[in-house]
């Protein structure tokens, strides 16, 4: 009995805790650089949390991610871009305003390695923004139950780095670990993917839907691609109001 009493004293007795008595957590934000989006999100992307940027091909996900990365480097942040598809064009990134000297570009050979690389970067601390770009991946990569090694490129299958993966231990859950690592080091993890996959581990989910392609010129005249109007919807928000939508114009360089 004395041991049980001591344990109750240490952990707290039933009824000691009153709902609503906890002080609300102060959340810091990483501005996106787009005033209209910052206004909808209440200041930007929540720091120390996972934000998802989901949408189909050519809906403007990468352009929006580059705009956010550019705003971060303008603010003096050191950022990282995990790019398993080797899809980043340095020239396009520089044109979007990213300071390339402040960007660590990591090109893992598979999606599962990308999740591990993101975890390493988040665990290191000091990176204000880590972009995990699963943009054109064909498979879910970091499910809450475990990482499935899919969407692997032919190059990765041949590489010695990936050769050990099929024989290695099964992947442990990634989203909870990524969320914990981000929270511990106050880094923002921005996941760019075809669909939202992090579930409840994401504090913010932005979906890019039907977009409009803008062409200049017309029949009989020279046509040029001017840009797209990307439709952004706040699909999930733990810190604000979900359901709000806006249009972001993305112009060609």
């Amino acid at each position: 009995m004395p041991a049980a009493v001591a344990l109750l004293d240490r952990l707290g007795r039933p009824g000691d805790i009153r709902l609503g008595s906890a002080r609300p957590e102060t959340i810091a934000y990483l501005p996106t650089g787009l005033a209209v989006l910052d206004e909808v999100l209440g200041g930007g992307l929540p720091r120390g949390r996972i934000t998802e940027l989901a949408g189909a091909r050519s809906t403007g996900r990468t352009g929006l991610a580059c705009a956010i990365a550019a705003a971060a480097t303008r603010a003096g942040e050191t950022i990282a871009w995990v790019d398993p598809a080797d899809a980043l064009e340095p020239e396009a990134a520089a044109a979007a305003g990213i300071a390339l000297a402040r960007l660590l570009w990591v090109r893992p050979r598979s999606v599962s390695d990308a999740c591990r690389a993101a975890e390493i970067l988040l665990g290191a601390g000091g990176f204000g923004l880590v972009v995990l770009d699963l943009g054109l991946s064909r498979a879910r990569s970091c499910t809450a139950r475990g990482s499935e090694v899919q969407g692997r490129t032919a190059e990765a299958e041949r590489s010695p780095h990936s050769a050990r993966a099929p024989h290695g231990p099964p992947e442990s859950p990634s989203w909870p670990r990524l969320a914990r690592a981000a929270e511990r080091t106050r880094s923002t993890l921005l996941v760019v993917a075809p669909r939202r996959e992090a579930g409840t581990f994401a504090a913010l989910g932005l979906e890019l839907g039907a977009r409009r392609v803008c062409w200049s010129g017309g029949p009989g005249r020279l046509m040029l691609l001017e840009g797209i109007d990307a439709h952004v919807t706040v699909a999930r928000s733990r810190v604000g109001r979900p359901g709000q939508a806006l249009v972001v114009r993305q112009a060609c360089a």
Partner: protein
Amino acid sequence: MPRIACLLVPDLPIAAACRADPDLAGRPLALSAGTGTHAPIVAAAAAARACGVRVGHTVAQALAIAADLVVRPRDETAERSAVRALVDVAVSLASRIEAAADGAVFLDAAGAAHLVPSEAGLATALVARAARVGLAARAAVGASMTVARLAALHATEVVPAGTELGFLAPLPLACLAPPPAIAATLERWGIRRLGDLARLPVAEVATRLGPAGAALVRAARGEDERPLAPQALGGPVEEAIDLEYALDALEPLLFVLRGLVERAVARVGLEGIGIARLGLALGLEDRSRDQRTVPLAAPTRDVKTLLTCLRVALEARPPRAAVERVVLAAVPEAVRAAQIGLFTPPGPSPERLATTLARLAALCGAERVGAPAVVDSHRPGAAGVAPFTLGGAPAPPSANGCRLVVRALRPPRPVEVFADRGRPDFVRGEGLGGRVVGAAGPWRVVGEWWSDGAFARDYYDLELSDGGLYRCYRDDGRWFVDGVYD
């Protein structure tokens, strides 16, 4: 009056063997000169000596005396590594170092005065740092190398200036290890202590016993034959081991490498720097050597990271035969420093960044981690990677807003394009396909005509009915997609 510190390890062969294999510590261990039951014992640990094992016994005799005796062949490679580790300990506290042939290390104590407050503190620091590299050493400070060495052997930390003769006088003559003939003569003279020997006139002893006798008298007075001769030290930190049997699997080899890496990291850590590059030399069973260099993205002291890099290197190109000898050379380099801005967000700390870069390089390959660099080329999609360092200038303020960005497809994907009156009408390829609902182009892009990589392409921007907006080109009649607007 100079002040000299001496750092030495009693029973160096035993200490080196225990350092290479920590499981041997505390066990009755004897080292033999070679293999076989007739090989003589050349060193015995205290536990073995307590059982009655003596240097000069054969292995068979020693095992007959102590059945639980552990006998290992003497490993001179491990002894050299241990001596180098002692030198590293000395280098971490002083700049004028001399390594004696028997493994003792002497250093100019005056050079360490700004690092440690007292001579006793210097001796304590030397012993503590030696323990960090796996050696139970002794250290002492005296007026000469002879005094410092004898003080270290007799567990005295400091012999104050002017008290040398008093310290040396009661010590037995045997601690100077005189030649047997001279020792017998001195025994006949009734000289048994250093104090007795020091009182003899040097010239008279030289007349009767020769130069060796005169040197003994000077040593008994605490005088050196020559002053400290500092050596130029530096270069990679080497750790080596001769294996008892050849290893033909990776995991046991990595187990051996872990010990070498841990010891190398401990030595490098004495100076607060990291390892920038690893050299691995493997002596193979077929009498050949396998040498390789493992580059690291940044200097690090993270054992796990270094082992991962070694594993990746060995998996990529396994040795062609079983491994009998391992030599690890760690090239030390200062961890990169960075100035933190007062008004900018703190970035990763330099050492954490170094470790992170090394871990990422081990995971992805060193050439796949870095800062993106714009290549001086007109070829669309060209990309380069530069080493990532802290402190890059922030992006200038810009009012560009949001840009439409192209995701590169590397390598470009071949597609089939069906044309209607010369205009693309339908596109079909891996992972994409549909009717063209919007198109712009063509634009001719020509470049590198002066080299083998010449290209001439007609580019189009195509919006397909599958929802994608693609950057396509026609090259020599064939069509490709090399980017997706996203």
